[in-house]
C-alpha cells in the first residue's frame, strides 16, 4: 500500500444464533430438513399470523454482547425493514433500527506484534431470510426459482464494527478473533460454509493525516475470511489508482468475484432500496432487566484473551504456543484435560501443535471429533517418559490411536514396540556385534569415536530398533573398555 493514503475499514458480520427454534415462531432451526419442512404460518408470513419473540435468542444476543464488551441496552425495540424479494415472506425483515440491543463494544486484535482495540458500534437482533433455489445455474439463466423457508426466521445477530481497521490484515485478524470469541460463548456455530457466519465490508481511502472519511464502498459476496482480505486488498488498490488519477470514488455496493479476483459494481447509492423502517406494531419493546444481564454474565465462559494470559502464567507456555492452543475452545479444553493427567505442559503443547495437528489436518477432522482423547494422549506420553517406547515409536503409536482409538499400551504390546531394556539379553547381542566387527572395535580403541555410533547402529539393527539406545551405549563402552 502506498504511503499516500490511509485505508479505513469497517465490517458488518451476521452470525446465526444456535437456538433450537426460530426468532418469532416455534419452528425448528435444524440444518438439512426437507424444503419447507420447518415452516409455519408465522415464518411463511401468512395473513394474520403474529410474531412472538424467542427469549432464548435474546439471551444469546446478550451473551454475545457481553463477550464483545458491549453495553446491553435495557430498552430496545424491533422495526420493520421493507423490501420486496421472493425469499422474504412478509416483504419486510424484522430487525432493530434505532434502538439496538447492544452498543459500544470492542475486540482486541494482535497484528504483527501490535495490539489494538477495534470498536463495536452495535449488535442487533434480526430474522434470517429464506433461500431461493434456481432451476438453472444462476438467477438470470433460470426458467423458474423455488423458495425454501426453513432458514427464514432463524435468529441472527448483526455485529457492526466501528471504522477502526486500517489494513486488510487487521480486518482478517478482527474476523478470526470475533469468530473465536463467538465460538467460545457457543451462541453461534460461525460456519461460513453453511452460511451461519457472513460478512460485508466497508472500505474507503483518505490522504494520510486527514481526519475526514473518504467515500466508502460496500463489498458483498465475501465467502471466507481470506476472501474478505483479498477483496479489501484489491479494492484498496483500485481506489488508490482512481485517487491517483484524480477520479472520484463512487459510493456504491460492489460484488467480489472469487474467480477473477476483482470487484464489480452491483448498485449505486441512488439505486439502493428505501427500507421505510418503522417500529413493528406487532411486537412490544424489549426490556432487559439488570438481573437478566447479570444472569448471563455469570455464565460467560473464560474468553480467549483471559485464557491466553492464564496459559502463559499458569502453565508457563511460550506466548506463541498459548496463542495457538487457545484458538478454539475445544483445543484449549483438550490441552487442560491432558495436562491434568500428564503434568508437562510444554510437552503436551508440542505434541498437540506437532503430530496431532498434522493428523487432524490430513484427515480434515476437528479435535473434538477425533479418536484421540486427553486420556489416551497422556498415557502415550507416560509410556515415552518411563522408557517403554522411544519417541520415534510414539509417533507411530499416536497414528494408530488416531485411526482406531485403541489404548496405546495395547498397541505397543500388539506391535511389539516395547524397548529392550533387559541388560542380560542386550549383553549377549552386544558381545555378538563386537565379535562380528573387529575392524570397528579396533578403530574405537584407536580413539575413533565415530566407530561407536556404527556399533550402536548394528545393535539397533539386530533388535529391529527396539533396543534402549542409552543402555546399548553403556554396555558397548563397558565391554570395549
Amino acid at each position, binding site marked *: 500500500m502506498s504511503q499516500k493514503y490511509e485505508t479505513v475499514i469497517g465490517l458488518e458480520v451476521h452470525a446465526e444464533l444456535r437456538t433450537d427454534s426460530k426468532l418469532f415462531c416455534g419452528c425448528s432451526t435444524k440444518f438439512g430438513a426437507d424444503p419447507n419442512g420447518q415452516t409455519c404460518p408465522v415464518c411463511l408470513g*401468512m395473513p394474520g399470523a*403474529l410474531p412472538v419473540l424467542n427469549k432464548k435468542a435474546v439471551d444469546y444476543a446478550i451473551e454475545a454482547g457481553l463477550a464483545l464488551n458491549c453495553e446491553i441496552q435495557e430498552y430496545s425495540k424491533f422495526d420493520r425493514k421493507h423490501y420486496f424479494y421472493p425469499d422474504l415472506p412478509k416483504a419486510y425483515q424484522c430487525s432493530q433500527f434505532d434502538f439496538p440491543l447492544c452498543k459500544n463494544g470492542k475486540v482486541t486484535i494482535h497484528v504483527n506484534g501490535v495490539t489494538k482495540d477495534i470498536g463495536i458500534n452495535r449488535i442487533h437482533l434480526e430474522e434470517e431470510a429464506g433461500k431461493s433455489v434456481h432451476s438453472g445455474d444462476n438467477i438470470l439463466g433460470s426458467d423458474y426459482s423455488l423458495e425454501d423457508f426453513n432458514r427464514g426466521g432463524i435468529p441472527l445477530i448483526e455485529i457492526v464494527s466501528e471504522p477502526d481497521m486500517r489494513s486488510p490484515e487487521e480486518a482478517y485478524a478482527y474476523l478470526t478473533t470475533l469468530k473465536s470469541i463467538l465460538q467460545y460463548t457457543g451462541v453461534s456455530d460461525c460456519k461460513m460454509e453453511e452460511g451461519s457466519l457472513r460478512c460485508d465490508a466497508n472500505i474507503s481511502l483518505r490522504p494520510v493525516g486527514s481526519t475526514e472519511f473518504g467515500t466508502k464502498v460496500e463489498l458483498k459476496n465475501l465467502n471466507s475470511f481470506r476472501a474478505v482480505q483479498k477483496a479489501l486488498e484489491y479494492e484498496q488498490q483500485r481506489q488508490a489508482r482512481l485517487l491517483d488519477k484524480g477520479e472520484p470514488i463512487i459510493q456504491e455496493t460492489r460484488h467480489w468475484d472469487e474467480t477473477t479476483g476483482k470487484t464489480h459494481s452491483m448498485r449505486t447509492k441512488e439505486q439502493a432500496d428505501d427500507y421505510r423502517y418503522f417500529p413493528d406494531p406487532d*411486537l412490544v419493546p424489549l426490556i432487559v432487566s439488570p438481573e437478566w444481564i447479570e444472569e448471563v454474565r455469570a455464565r460467560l465462559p473464560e474468553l480467549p484473551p483471559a485464557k491466553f494470559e492464564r496459559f502463559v502464567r499458569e502453565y508457563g507456555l511460550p506466548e506463541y504456543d498459548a496463542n495457538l492452543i487457545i484458538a478454539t475452545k475445544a483445543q484449549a479444553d483438550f490441552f487442560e484435560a491432558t495436562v491434568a493427567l500428564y503434568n508437562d505442559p510444554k510437552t503436551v503443547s508440542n505434541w498437540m501443535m506437532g503430530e496431532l495437528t498434522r493428523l487432524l489436518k490430513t484427515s480434515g477432522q476437528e479435535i473434538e471429533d477425533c479418536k484421540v482423547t486427553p486420556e489416551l494422549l497422556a498415557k502415550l506420553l507416560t509410556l515415552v517418559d518411563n522408557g517403554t517406547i522411544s519417541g520415534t515409536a510414539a509417533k507411530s503409536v499416536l497414528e494408530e490411536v488416531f485411526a482406531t482409538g485403541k489404548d496405546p499400551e495395547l498397541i505397543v504390546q500388539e506391535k511389539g514396540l516395547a524397548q529392550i531394556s533387559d541388560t542380560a539379553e542386550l549383553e549377549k547381542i552386544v558381545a555378538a556385534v563386537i565379535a562380528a566387527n573387529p575392524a570397528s572395535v579396533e578403530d574405537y580403541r584407536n580413539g575413533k569415536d565415530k566407530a561407536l555410533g556404527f556399533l550402536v547402529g548394528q545393535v539397533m539393527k539386530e533388535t529391529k530398533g527396539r533396543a534402549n539406545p542409552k543402555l546399548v551405549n553403556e554396555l558397548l563402552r563397558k565391554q570395549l573398555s
Partner: protein
Amino acid sequence: MSLFDRTAHELGEMLRRREVSAVEVTEAVLKRVESVDPVVKAYLTTTPELARAMARAVDSRLQRGEELPPLAGIPMGLKDNFSTTGVRTTCASKMLEHYVPPFDCTVYQKLMHQMSPLIGKHNMDEFAMGSSTETSAFFPTHNPWDLERVPGGSSGGSAAAVAAGEAIFALGTDTGGSIRQPAAFCGVVGLKPTYGRVSRSGVVPFASSLDHIGPITKTVTDAALVLNAIAGHDPGDSTTVKREVPDYTSFLKDDVRGLRIGLPQEFFAEGLDPEIKEGIFATVKQLEAAGAQVVEVSLPHAQATEAVYYLVASAECSSNLARYDGVRFGYRSSTAPDVQTMYKHTRGEAFGLMVKRRILLGTYALITGNYDVYYRKAMQVRTLIVRDFERAFEQCDVLISSTTPTPAYKMGEKSKDPVALALSDLFTIPANLAAIPAISVPGGYTKEGLPYGLQIMGPAFGEGRVLQVAYTVEKLVDARQRKPELPEKGGVA
C-alpha cells in the same frame, strides 16, 4: 317471536330449559339467511355443514345432561378477515378470493370451545378499509332498515347480518370505528374493547396498532357474554395484556347513580345531525334524572384526529399489505415475464382503489425524509390525544357522544368522496388512537325510521363501566321495540 329474532342470552336459557334444540336454532338462522340474504347480501361464504355439526354436538351434550358453555348452540358469523381453517378468508379482496387459511385465529378457537356454530363469513370493505362495505371486491351489503342505504363499514356485513337475524351475534374488527359505526347504522350493539384485551392473532391486519376485535350483538347483555368468551391474554399475541378478565355480565346493572358522565364538547360541534343531537341529549337528561352527574369536558386535540389516523393507519397498512406479492398464496398475475413485474401486476390487478390509495399514502409517509415529518409527528400527536382522554377521565367516568354524525346514507352517495367518508368516522377514531373501550348502543330512530347509535367511551380496561352505562341506556331507549322489515325472497344465499 321467531328464533332468529332472539338474543344469545334468551336462546341460551331456552336451550338449557330444553325448550328448543341447538339444531332447531341453527336451522332457523340458516333458513333466515336463505330467505333474506339475497337482498341483504351480508355473507361472502356460508358454512351450513360446520354449523349443523356443531349444533348436533351441542344437542348431544344437552342430552347427556352436561354443562354447556355460555354461547353453546348460539349461531354466529365472522367478518371475512378472521382466519378459519378450511374456510376461505377473503378480506373481500380479489387478492384473497380463493385463499384458505391453514390455521384458526385465536378468537374463533375460543368460540369453538364455546361450541358456537359458525354460519359463515361476512362481507366487509376490502381489507377493512372503508365505512360502507361498498369497497368489497365482490358486492355491497345492504342496510336491513333500508335496502337502498349502506350498512356502514367496514364490518357492514356483520352488523347487517345481526340486524337481519342472519346471525345471533358476530365478531368484527374496528380500526377507526368499523364495529361501532355499522352497529349504529344497523341498530345493533357494537363493542370495541381496550387494545390488548382481545387477541388479534390470526385476524388479517389492516393497521396493527389500531385494529381491535369485538362483538356485534343485539343487546348489551349479549356483548358482555361474547366479550367474556373472547377476552384475555394470548401467548400468540405479544400485544395482549396479562390482566384478569372480570365477568362482564356482573356489570349489567340498571343503575347510574353517582356516575359522572362527560360530554366532550368537540363531539357536539357542527356536522352532527340535529335530530341525533337532540336524541342523545334527551337520553343524557334521562341518565341525569336516574342519578348520574353530567359534566362537559374537552378533548383539545380532537381536530388532529383525522390527520393522525390517516397517517398511522396508512403507514401500518402499507407495511402489512406488502406481503401480498403473489409468491406464496393468493392472487398471482399471469401476465408477468419476471418477478419484479409479477409483483407490480399482481398488486395492480388484485387490490381495489381504496386499498391502493392507502398503500401509496402509507408508503409515502414512511420513506426517508418523510418519516420524521409525517409518521413520527403523527405518533407524537397520538400521544397528546391519549393524554386528552386521560385528563377527561379525571373529570368523569365515561364519555357519551353520538357514534356517527349522521344515520346511514344512501349507497353510492359518499363512496366516491373519500373526504366525506372520512368525516363519518370522526367520533369513532379517537377511541382507536387512545386504545380505550367504546361501545355503540342504539340511541333511537330518526323521523325517517333510521336507527342511530349512542357511543359510550371509558378509560382503558373500563369495559365494565362502559357496559353498565350501555345497559342503562338500552333500558331507557328500548330500541328493540322496532325490527327491520325485510322482504323474504327465499332461494339460495
